[in-house]
């Protein structure tokens, strides 16, 4: 395989079918951002640690900087852009707003995707479970205090930290 090789892929992105030809080496995050012009998923590191690029891949959170675009072939991918419908934010997004769980906002899209996935799997997590569930997402503004509070609020309960 040569670095200039390309592949044809077809997948579902936020409910719509995407057909594209992508270079073999292109990261999924670069494909989403540079080729498909999404601005939700972000890039914050080179090593898969920051989680700003978190998206749902066949219903599970993945870091889109750790996958190649060709691996999207046949998959269903959802990004933060898919969450608010008709301008209505989801309970997780609303809770982040109400509890001041974001400052600069750069990690927020990834954080919201991870929080959404966490609550799907565990609708009433303890504060420790929330912290564990968000382990893959770094935030440098909030100290996580209000993020934990917001996720707990979205789950319908107060934190007892």
């Amino acid at each position, binding site marked *: 395989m040569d670095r200039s090789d390309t592949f044809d892929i077809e997948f579902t992105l936020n409910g719509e079918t995407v057909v594209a030809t992508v270079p073999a080496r292109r990261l999924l995050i670069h494909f989403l951002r540079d080729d498909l012009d999404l601005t939700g998923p972000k890039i*914050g*590191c080179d090593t898969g*640690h920051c989680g700003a690029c978190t998206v749902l891949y066949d219903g599970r959170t993945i870091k889109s900087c750790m996958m190649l675009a060709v691996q999207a072939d046949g998959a269903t991918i959802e990004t933060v852009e898919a969450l608010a419908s008709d301008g209505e934010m989801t309970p997780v997004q609303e809770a982040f707003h109400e509890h001041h769980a974001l400052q600069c906002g750069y990690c927020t899209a990834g954080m919201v995707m991870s929080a959404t996935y966490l609550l799907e799997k565990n609708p009433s997590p303890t504060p420790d479970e929330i912290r564990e569930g968000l382990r893959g997402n770094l935030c*440098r*503004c909030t100290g996580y205090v209000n993020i934990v509070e917001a996720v707990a609020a979205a789950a319908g309960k107060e934190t007892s930290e």
Partner: protein
Amino acid sequence: MTAPTRVETPRWTGQNYPRKEDRRLLTGQGRYVDDRGMIRQGYAHFVRSPYAHARIVSIDTSKLENMTGVYCTLVGEEVKEMSDPLFQIAPPPGGNMVEYLMAVDKVRYQGEPVAVVLAETRELARDAADLIDVRYEPLPPVVDAIAAQEPDAPILHDEVGTNVSWQGTYEYGDIDWALAEADHVVKIDKLHFHRFSSTPIECFGVVVNWDRGTDTIEVISNNQMPMFGAMMIAPSLRIGIDRFEFTSQDIGGGFGIKINLYKQTGVLALLSRKAGRPVKWTETRTEHHLDGGHGNERWFLDVEVPVMADGTILGVKARAIDDAGAYLHYEPLGAVIWSQVLPGCYKMRHFRIDYSQSLTNKCPTVPNRGYSRMQHLWMLERIIDIVAHELGFDPVEIRKRNYVQPDDYPYETPNGCVYDSGNLPLSLDKALELIDYPKWRERQKAAEGTTKRIGIGIGSTLDSGTNNFGQSRIINRELPFSGNGEAAICKLDLYGEVSVALGTTPQGQGHETTAAQVVADILGISPEEVTVIPGFDQARNSYVGFSGTYASQFAVTGINAVIGAAEKLKAEMVELAAMALGASEDEIELAEGHARVVGDPERAIPFIGLANMIYTNNAELPTEVAERISLNCRHVYVPPFDPPDPDRKYGNLTLTYASQIHAAVVEVDTETGKVEVLDYAAVDDCGVRINPQIVEGQVHGAAAHGIAAALREEMRYDEDGQLLNANFLYYHAPSAAEMPHIKTDYVESPSPFTGTGAKGMGEGGGAPLHAICSAIQDALGSDVPVVADSFNPPERVYRLLHGEGLGAGRGVEVVSKEGS
């Protein structure tokens, strides 16, 4: 209008109004620099030095000459031709430094750019950069700030002739008298404040186009102090400030580090001019750690502390050696900025600090949250705890005895700074209450003799805000800077819309919200009806040379500029309304989107009607009024400062002093050295809070940075000057799972100097570093060496437990008078 200003009838000001910024950020519609671009742009990639110190023998770009998709390259020698060296803040010898926008002849830290390539795609630019062949002749590096001052140390900058970039003595009171009079003198060999960075999740980014047709330079970037950046690079690029248009919208964290984004902007502008097309550059995480900028590392040597028998601490004598890294970026301003908090929270009156700054073969240091003050405050807090431990004082009581007391404000420090207000003893009590101090003292006793020791620590700090830039003259008396300020525009638009434009570049501080809150109160509308234009655009927003978002000052400089602009607009609206309604001006009130006569709500004119009078119906007005009233009002807030006296190093260096008292409870595992935070509390006093929730968010963030820095984060170089943790794999920024819950409370001591009573806040004073070191020492007891480093990973704590500190013995000595 003169400062101070205030909001007379606060309805929205002071409330937890949810942020106006949030919706776009929560739905992925923020516009950060990498989300933006320009037509025909190429992607830039830098070639960086693998060596900490080396002579550049040759740079061969010939392999790229006929490569499809590669637009252009630029190397140091060309930069030398196309531009001039950067302006230096330092006086000679540091000021003799010749620093071009890219390395010429020599590299001085690992990761320093030596060439840059522009190509059609990100991937191609990276591949092409790999094909540039750079030959180096390695030179011996110096990575230690103390060793850098030795006579035989390798010299970084030949034209400077020494690795000491700046030195000066800060002397106040009579420290020799104090040392002679004191009942005890506590001597500490060596303290070391480590190098780390708050590492914003968004790295640097620039999209720049040097338009050949107009000779203007459009810059989209995430620079947090763009006009400082413009001042730095315009002379280097041989152009005027008016040739630039700096813009930014959303910025993904800054913490001071993004002040450093000017050199790259300059060299990429040159690349754009050479290529004849826009250039986009997005820094990678690895590049950010190597080159973005780190916080200041500092040594404190030969510390001597005179203490009276009752625990009164008279002052401090010490040598401070700051490590600036390889170039002076914003430095050596840090060499005076620490003195904003010379005595910290304490009433000490006698000081001699011999301060010097070393150049080393490491990444340049830049302002990082708590800039230069937290290093000094850490030393003071270490002193307090070491004195308490060595002389048997209670760490709470000795603090309360030495704190500036509530009745002392305004309190003038020995170097002429004026602490505006505060209540430190109350703040400390609240912090101790939050952690349930007596409970932990009991648990500490119960844990004695086990392998899991408990320690409780306190960090007392000040966050000095609204700098008097005149303090730069203490560093270099030739500098033409003094005072401070910020600009804002408040406008009534054609259909009666209220809009505000700020000179600031927020990175999460919620300026769109807090500005809207105060404008809403002044104009009698709701914050929803105030549009605060997101982002900064040099051609649209108004600014002063100090504009930007840095150094804990928006609540004073930014908000007071907004209040001033809104008050000017209100005065114009009231004048027009009085004319239209046939009333006197003092009868007019602004409420519910109308100007109306008090007590006669039928006589009212909507904002759109006032706008119509000026914008589209001016023949109805006297010409004098139509020409004078613009409904487009600019105000620059100017804080009340005089230039300091550089000879005495004396003057009021900052307007406000927010305080932070933190309390930490840690568990130290004596078998592994691992430190776990069991409880944590932060009590902040920033005067009157415009939006308490936003304030609290800043308190959380500053606390988190400090906790992480104390236990997890160090930019660590080996003896060859290789950075060992240039990514998040090895640089352990904490996740939620590794961060303790932070309890908060507040005290409100209004500032008498700001009109609103608010104080700048956000940076904090590095209180967690102090509190955690204090708690570790408390857990370890007095038989082991003093905690002499601000960074305490398990291996260092383990060594302390086994008797290995930074120096010989325990690193501390007490000399007491007979009978004391």
